[in-house]
């Protein structure tokens, strides 16, 4: 018997492959509908697995312990499916308006989501790498999908070269770990690490470092952050959203699994590095974000800062299930909602040039709804109270203080303070100017509804109380993030 996730994996794969086969015969509209239905049907189908904490190995006879399906991966899979479905819905007009989006683009989106699902389930270094490459390679192509625009091709070039370059380091790290421990499975590796002294683990440690470098690159952490601004900028908006909002989360899912199940006992060795990385990621991202003029570049730069916050949480983890580990999960949820929303609003603006602070002036008077939604997402990204972004920061800073990393929490608060400037500047330019904005917007009612749903979630999960028992609120989300960590 197949269990639910296997059905979903096969289903998405089958749909993608049949789309490839029929790609020449299908119109974009049909392919769009099919991929949307695939993603949302899988999401609804998997919802029935929510509830009890569970952990099962997928097809143990075939894959041994390479793939694991537990509550932890379920949460991430649900996030990927939901957010990619939302992404397609929000950017519908964008996709149909820009001629370079073809049936193939949708296939690549499906493949990348498939890779991310696999990534969050992977329980083996090599499977993790293959899943990572499936997702990355689809995204490399998507970045360069606009082959007539020089910027887009250049972003493709940069991302592909840097990505495969860093991929080689992952493989080297994997090989070193394998040569010493004779295994690539997370479970066996954890056994190996816990039964050996640090002196016998040199290659495992160095290998872990190399693997960490690649993963840091993918989440655009210091010192591998410089690429992300250009590439996020060069890519079409929905793809930027896919990279910054969804792909980053899938990387964090594998980082969390690898870190929590294997490298947690070597934490003291890696901690100084992670702390340094988080400090410089936050600072570098802040400086980049301040100096940007285009909103898209600003959001790209600020996503670097958010990686920095997540690294604070990573460095504060002491044991599985302590407050730091679930604050990280909570922040990921908060971040995916706000970044999906903010980039979604941007992708609903029909403009040839980049949307800048200057061109946003007076936007509130031409499109009050989108301006309001944008403001809500800005507030959430800035960590303003009454939004989910605030609670995320609140949990992360408190867990940092709990692990006696108070200076890091103070630095985090300082970067949050800097971020107030560039996020509030967006609100200020939308509202504080009387002149009529020249920006046109797509008016697709479905996209508006999705944007509204996301902003409602941002606010409701920020202040929603468990007082209304029939609607899960903030508290339930927090408890849920704690419980899924325990399923690892």
């Amino acid at each position, binding site marked *: 018997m197949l269990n639910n996730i296997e059905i979903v994996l096969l289903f998405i794969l089958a749909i993608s492959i049949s789309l490839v086969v029929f790609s020449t015969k299908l119109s974009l509209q049909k392919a769009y509908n099919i991929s949307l239905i695939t993603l949302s049907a899988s999401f609804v189908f998997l919802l029935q697995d929510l509830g009890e904490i569970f952990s099962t190995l997928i097809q143990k006879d075939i894959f041994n312990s390479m793939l694991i399906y537990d509550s932890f991966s379920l949460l991430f899979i649900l996030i990927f499916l939901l957010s990619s479905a939302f992404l397609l819905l929000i950017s519908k007009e964008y996709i149909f308006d820009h001629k370079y989006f073809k049936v193939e683009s949708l296939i690549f989106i499906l493949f990348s989501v498939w890779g991310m699902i696999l990534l969050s389930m992977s329980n083996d270094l090599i499977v993790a790498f293959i899943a990572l490459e499936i997702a990355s390679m689809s995204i490399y192509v998507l970045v360069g999908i606009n082959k007539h625009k020089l910027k887009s091709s250049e972003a493709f070039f940069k991302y592909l070269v840097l990505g495969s370059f860093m991929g080689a380091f992952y493989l080297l790290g994997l090989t070193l770990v394998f040569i010493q421990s004779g295994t690539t499975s997370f479970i066996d590796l954890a056994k190996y690490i816990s039964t050996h002294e640090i002196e016998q683990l040199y290659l495992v440690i160095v290998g872990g470092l190399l693997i960490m470098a690649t993963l840091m690159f993918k989440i655009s952490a210091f010192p591998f952050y410089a690429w992300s601004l250009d590439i996020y900028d060069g890519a079409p908006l929905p793809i930027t959203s896919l990279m910054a909002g969804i792909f980053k989360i899938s990387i964090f899912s594998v980082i969390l699994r690898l870190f929590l199940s294997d490298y947690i006992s070597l934490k003291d060795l890696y901690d100084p590095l992670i702390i340094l990385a988080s400090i410089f990621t936050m600072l570098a991202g802040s400086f980049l974000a301040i100096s940007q003029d285009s909103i898209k570049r600003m959001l790209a730069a600020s996503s670097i800062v958010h990686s920095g916050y997540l690294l604070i949480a990573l460095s504060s983890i002491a044991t599985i299930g302590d407050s730091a580990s679930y604050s990280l999960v909570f922040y990921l949820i908060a971040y995916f909602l706000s970044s999906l929303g903010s980039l979604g609003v941007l992708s609903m603006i029909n403009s040839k040039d980049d949307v800048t602070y200057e061109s946003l002036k007076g936007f509130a008077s031409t499109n009050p709804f989108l301006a309001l939604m944008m403001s809500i997402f800005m*507030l959430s990204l800035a960590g*303003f*109270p*009454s939004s989910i972004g605030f609670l995320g920061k*609140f949990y992360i*800073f*408190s867990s940092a*203080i*709990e692990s006696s990393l*108070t200076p890091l*929490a*103070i630095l985090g*608060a*300082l970067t*949050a*303070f800097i971020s*107030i*400037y560039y996020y*509030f*500047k967006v609100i*200020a330019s939308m*509202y*504080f*100017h009387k002149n009529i904005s020249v920006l046109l917007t797509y008016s697709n009612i479905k996209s508006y509804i999705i944007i509204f749903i996301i902003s409602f979630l941002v606010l409701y999960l920020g*202040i929603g*109380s*468990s*007082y209304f028992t029939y609607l899960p609120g*903030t*508290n339930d989300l*927090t*408890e849920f993030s*704690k419980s899924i960590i325990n399923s690892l």
Partner: protein
Amino acid sequence: MILSVMIFTPFLAGVFLYLFRAKINFVKASVLLVQVFIASLAIDVYMGFEPSAILQFESNIPWIPFYGINYHIGLDGVSLSLFMMVALIMPLVSIALYDRAFVGLWINSLIVQSGIMGALLAQDLMLFYLFWETMLLPIFFMIGIYGYGKKEFFSMKFTIYTIFGSLAMLISILYLIISFKVQHGFYTFDIVSLKDTILTHQEQIFIFLGFALAFGIKIPIFPFHTWLADTYKSSPTIAIVILSALMSKLGIYAIYRILFGIFASISLELAHLVISLGLASMLYFALLAINSIDLKKIFAYSSASHLSLILVGLFIHNSTSLLGVSLFIASHALSTAAIFIMIAILYNRRESINLDSLGGIVQSAPLFSLFFAFFALSIVGIPFTSGFVSEILIILGSFEYSSIVGFVATTSILASIVFILNVIKKTLFGKKQEDFKDLQSKELLSLIPLALLILALGIFPNTFLSKVKPTVDNYSNSSKAHYAK
């Protein structure tokens, strides 16, 4: 329950009015209606308030039980005076400025009322922080959209300045609750329970400073006042009244509630420093006020100067001065609200609030002159106004504490009387200029209640003071115990 209604009705009404894009007349009428409704509820609450030190009209509902965060609100003697002022002043301001035709201004004033009310009644640090921050947003929009001059810049400056303080407070709050959790094994944000946290002396000072930064910026005290003049100059009148009459008092209130509630011993230990700072900034702001010629600036600085006096009274912390503080919060809120309304009226008719170009009003507008003089003098506390009683109480308290403090405080009050007389003279008297339209019935409708309230609090202060006496005694006993040790 009644308090929750008072907190959320304005907010919900504001959101409703925004979403339904109501017409201006409907908006104005409904804003006023909501505010009058809140005011009547507040009077009801005031009547039912028992003169005792315990928390009343309490409600406590779990919000994020996982982190021990509760929706815990209640009213006691500490918050009573400001609570009444928020509820009473807002409708009066709305009546006085009823001709303002901006929908956003009215909606934001409703939302900010919710924010202030919430911060005032919150008994849970997280809830307090939530309201403390959210009330910033309406002010941000009010200044940025409806302000004057370089409004975008000053609105950003004000917001960023204030949020800087708030983030310092956030770190302090987190440090505090984590220390509590480490010692007691569970999270709580309850102000009363957090008193039991054991901290080293150094930690206490750092946490104290974190909180003090946030509150000091909001009041403001020297040297965090650099946002004050610009913000007041570029703000619309409603925002100025809210900032000066209500939000700055909220800073004082927060010191009273949180610093003296949780860190009583460290606050008393640092009291002499804060008192010296308060006295210095009192004199400094008075000097700044004397040197300004813009009426808005003058009263911004003079109100900051009086707030420093309240701060001094608060940190002297004996029962006389605390009574004075409670009364002064109310009376100063009334007087500043009234005087800024007067300035707005003046600006509407003369298009100028520059001291040098004013004058000659008394001949054509006796009623206006009477009210202007009365409110200006009530700020410095002439007899029969509430300012008088409260200043006397604070000065008595400060002489109890130390004669030097008492002497400096008295001198600066006397100096400010002389200076206010000068302002009145320059504004109202002098050679008759063009005709000045006297006060209209609509304006009188809001100014007469303000004047009556000031007089009532000045002539019968005991009706109010007896309500807060038990709370004040409770607080001052702790300081007596501290000094005895």
